[in-house]
């Protein structure tokens, strides 16, 4: 991978600590995401991947440590704060309301209102515009298999739901998109589509953070790989110079990674 040199990370975190009672989720984790890259985040269960991502996306407030966006310190108290900074997250649970339709889900929590008095006084939603934009977004991401934008999300397959959630993030994410285990529940063909979506997003200039258990998927699309172990970042490796088995060795503690080239 290229040397980043003096480039300013888009998101940078230093010394993040998060505890849950006596359980340590994050034990002083550092983190950097650079412009235009797909950063894989791997780690064993309980390594703190999800906690790290929740802190970066505003779903959790770290106990200590600093997060900077474009070099500026930020404090995310709520998901809305991170969103306002252009960070969109696709959670493993997808965060979709199954009984609502696709368009409603894409705009959930930031609905569009009609212009004029209807919108300002009567708070009337612009159903037509939301449906149009939702359809455009799905089209732009090459997700053409959905029959109708007014279908309830519960009638979709797992891959289609994932596509809706990714499309929602891509539609609103102006800076970073975080994907938490996007292929965990998917079959081979659907996983392939999601990986292709990730590359598309990067090619459109959006950096992506990909949290995954699936080594082949991470090694297929990631430019750099952040390895998390016991609440800390133990290494950042390049998929071109590190083998999946080496990464697993670092992840499980069999190797400390000191013999490997660290990619920054």
């Amino acid at each position, binding site marked *: 991978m290229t040397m980043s040199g003096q480039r300013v990370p888009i998101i940078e975190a230093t010394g993040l600590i998060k505890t849950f009672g006596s359980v340590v989720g994050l034990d002083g984790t550092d983190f950097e995401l650079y412009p235009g890259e797909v950063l894989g985040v791997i780690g064993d269960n309980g390594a703190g991947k999800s906690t790290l991502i929740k802190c970066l996306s505003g779903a959790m407030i770290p106990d200590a440590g600093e997060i900077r966006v474009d070099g500026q310190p930020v404090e995310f108290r709520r998901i809305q704060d991170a969103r306002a900074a252009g960070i969109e997250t696709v959670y493993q649970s997808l965060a979709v309301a199954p009984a609502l339709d696709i368009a409603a889900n894409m705009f959930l929590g*930031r609905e569009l209102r009609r212009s004029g008095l209807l919108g300002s006084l009567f708070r009337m*939603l612009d159903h037509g515009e939301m449906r149009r934009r939702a359809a455009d977004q799905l089209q732009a991401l090459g997700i053409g298999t959905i029959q109708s934008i007014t279908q309830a999300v519960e009638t*979709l397959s797992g891959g289609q739901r994932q596509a809706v959630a990714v499309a929602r993030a891509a539609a609103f994410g102006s800076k970073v998109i975080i994907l938490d285990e996007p292929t965990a529940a998917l079959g081979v063909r659907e996983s392939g589509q999601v990986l292709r979506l990730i590359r598309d997003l990067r090619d459109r200039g959006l950096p992506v953070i990909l949290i995954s258990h699936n080594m082949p998927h991470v090694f297929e699309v990631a430019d750099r790989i952040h390895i998390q172990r016991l609440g800390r970042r133990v290494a950042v490796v390049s998929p071109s110079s590190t083998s999946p088995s080496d990464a697993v060795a670092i992840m499980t503690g069999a190797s400390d990674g000191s013999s490997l080239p660290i990619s920054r």
Partner: protein
Amino acid sequence: MSEIPAPRVDPAERFLRRRTPIQRIHHVLHSYPALSPAVVLVLSAIAFAFLNPRFYAPANLSLIAQQVAVVGALAVGQTIIIMTAGIDLSVGAIMVFTAMVMAASASNYGLPGPVALVVGLVVGTLAGGLNGVLVTRLRLPPFIVTLGTLNIFIALTLLYSSGQAIQGPDIPAILLWTGEDISLGSFRITTGVLMMLALYVVFTYILRNTAWGRHVYAVGDDAEASRLAGIAVNRTLLSVYLVAGFVYALGAWILIGRVGAASPNAGTDANLDTITAVVIGGTSLFGGRGIIVGSLLGALIVGVFRNGLALAGVDVLYQTLVVGVLVIVAVATDQWIRRVRA
């Protein structure tokens, strides 16, 4: 970016996509949740007309409308709470408490009628808000919270009123206004009935066309997903309970007009009547699904059954038995409708 070719339809998929007549019905009922209560209402009205032609007399239909007005209005509040996967057992108690506050403010404390009305509306809203605070701050299940406030408000009502009803002559005209007759041809309905219908129009609009309405459904559907999607879940829940409390206060106003008095002993069992109306109307007790006008249809179905069976000379106990059967059939139908193919 390459276009994805249209997916090949596998034989199994074609098998799953086949539509038997039952599946078509299933699909239609799933798409239009108010349809099944509407069909039941129409069929039962036709059946009762056969049993006794007097059922269709304008005077009788007007009577049904008036009998349904209070429960129908309260059911609006109950519906939005049930849509958030909650339940409100305190609806009747809050209504009666609010009615007593309204009437007593005027008759015992000498407040002018409009002021007494506003006091009542504020008290009802705050009473609903108390439920909301307990549900969102203490994170207690709505069933427990409202079971508690049910008893609290019944007791407060009796303490406050010393068990005495306040009679019509002591109540200002504005509080009795909801009982005034309006003649539509040979139908005579009351302003209270119109107010109840207006509530359904307003809330149909709100739930369908505002972001708040969307959020009510979303929070009931999946609260955690809603939170992650950026909805302020607790604020939405609290606002639902406050709005429901305001609706109950309007119900209290309609009740005073209907009874022509404010009595501390009547109407506390409205909790079960409203839940019955909501459930028969096709709103899911699990939250996130339903349509508000269904609750009006549900209230009307109960009213029509009770009235029609009474006209047919059926004992009141059998009327209650039939309502019980209706509830079970409605929930069973709801379960079946909700079972959609993923």
